[in-house]
């Protein structure tokens, strides 16, 4: 058992007497590795790869659950129906708008929160950390209800609190129009998910070497110069990872829209459109096609980030 006592770095050292032993061990290690990680791997594949393949297959049929006998292969015609329909483009526009607005606002706000937490006196830091985790831990549906009721006509306080603003009165119906409704949806999303971004950014901030800051300070750099020339470039990886995760998460927006507007007044997101086709209208074929298009959009966004912005995902989440 001499090979096992060596530290990992020296394991591969070629020693004339031991080559067979080492390859035996590495073969055993390989087998053990797959035995341990295999079940998790298979489960992950089963719960995602199988459904998406099924969705791709279903999307090629004209198939209603209310009329299962008349299932017919129609090729790509479901996609043609969707891509020529205004509803699809409206929902895609709404989804993109929510994604861009929330991610940009969250990045700025999250950065500010991270800076405050970084600089805050150590006495209040645990309190801040606990406070900022609360929105993260609150169920999205609960947060959506809280914001809906705050702005709602029947039980809200926003109209009476902000009646001094032009355009806001006791009868302002926030959910009656597309823009005002989307504004409230974005507000709820931003409140709920900014903490996640700010925690990722805080971890990035902590890794900016203090010596660089000191050097810049000695050279007479202003606060703004230090921020844009030293801090932000040095935490680019953290910013990009936060951006990627939040963009993909925002693109799937569903819960808030379901609770707040149910897609009324052109506030439907792509996820909600897929839900409405499949579950409410039982149009399995059309709904699957929307699901596949949503999936492709997510793949496209990830590819854009990874190739376009060179986000190195191998440096994230557990990869040694």
């Amino acid at each position, binding site marked *: 058992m001499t090979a096992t006592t060596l530290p990992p770095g020296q394991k591969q050292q070629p020693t004339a007497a031991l080559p067979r032993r080492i390859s035996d061990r590495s073969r055993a290690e390989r087998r053990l590795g797959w035995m341990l990680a295999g079940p998790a791997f298979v489960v992950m594949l089963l719960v995602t790869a199988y459904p998406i393949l099924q969705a791709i297959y279903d999307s090629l049929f004209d198939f209603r659950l209310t009329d299962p006998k008349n299932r017919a292969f129609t090729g790509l015609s479901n996609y043609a129906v969707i891509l020529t329909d205004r509803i699809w483009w409206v929902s895609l526009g709404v989804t993109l708008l929510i994604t861009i607005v929330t991610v940009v606002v969250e990045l700025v706000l999250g950065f500010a929160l991270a800076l405050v937490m970084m600089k805050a006196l150590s006495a209040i830091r645990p309190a801040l950390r606990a406070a900022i985790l609360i929105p993260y831990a609150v169920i999205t549906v609960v947060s959506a209800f809280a914001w809906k009721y705050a702005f709602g006509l029947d039980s809200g306080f926003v109209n009476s609190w902000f009646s001094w603003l032009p355009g806001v009165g006791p009868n302002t119906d926030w959910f009656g129009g597309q823009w005002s409704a989307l504004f409230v949806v974005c507000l709820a999303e931003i409140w709920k998910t900014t903490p996640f971004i700010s*925690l990722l950014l805080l971890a990035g901030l902590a890794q900016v070497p203090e010596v660089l800051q000191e050097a810049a300070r000695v050279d007479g750099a202003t606060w703004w110069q230090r921020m844009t020339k030293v801090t932000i470039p040095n935490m680019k990886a953290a910013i990009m990872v936060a951006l990627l995760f939040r963009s993909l998460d925002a693109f799937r927006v569903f819960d808030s829209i379901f609770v707040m507007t149910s897609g009324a007044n052109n506030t439907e997101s792509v996820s909600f459109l897929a839900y409405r086709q499949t579950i409410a209208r039982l149009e399995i074929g059309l709904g699957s096609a929307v699901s596949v298009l949503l999936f492709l959009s997510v793949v496209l966004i990830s590819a854009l980030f990874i190739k376009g912005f060179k986000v190195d995902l191998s440096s994230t989440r557990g990869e040694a």
Partner: protein
Amino acid sequence: MSRREKAWWLVAGLAIVVYALFPVAWIVSLSLKGSADLANGQFLPTKLSWSNYQLILTGGASDLFLPALRNSFGICLIATAISCLLAMFAAYAIARLDFPGKKVILSTALAVAIFPVISIVTPLFNLWRQIGLYDTWPGLIIPYLSLTLPISIWTLSAFFREIPWEMEQAAQVDGATTWQAFRKVIVPLAAPGVFTTAIIAFFIAWNDFVYGIVLTSTNAARPVPAALGLFSGESQFEQPNGPIAAAAVIVTVPVVVLVLLFQRRIVSGLTNGAVKG
């Protein structure tokens, strides 16, 4: 730091606390409003009333809310336990062993985590109806693994990389097998990481809404978020706002308590390994 600067950071910190607590305070306040107060247009109730809590815990809405609460706890706990167990073995292999496919497993976890839930749920809706998993606990536990397993694998591999592995080697020198070293030395060292991972995975499962509304139809398996979301539509009450707020408070309290108790660990679990150290 000058005194003025100190005061400034204190104010900024206070703003964060207000930001985080304001909507929570609002929903608590709303849940304590009686029917006369609901539409008073104010933040606070004029008179405290427990009628909303009575309605959902013992009154007419309790047969909707209590089963949902039981479903949520049961389904989320089981899904969390399964994914933690699977992730524990996978993360050990990733952090410790040298085998090809490590990268494949981590990339798969990443891909599953960013997968749009809606794309998974539409085919499952049809399949579950055919094989009898629709509106059952296993019918939700299985898809919940797609939410909890990837984050468990990442978080745990990050935790496992921090473990002093010399101790495992020491155990092996003393004659322990790889398996014994894992069970007797690593498991106790890894327990805090596993615990944190379980909390985070539980949060994610607890938060689910899409699977909940699509794959259930009755009290048999419907979890709380789905029950809340559908409550507004099909309720026999004039004003569902009060009872929904009360139910929202009840499901928020346990997670807030968990956060307050374990905030340091949860933060390190969420960010550990997310950004390379």
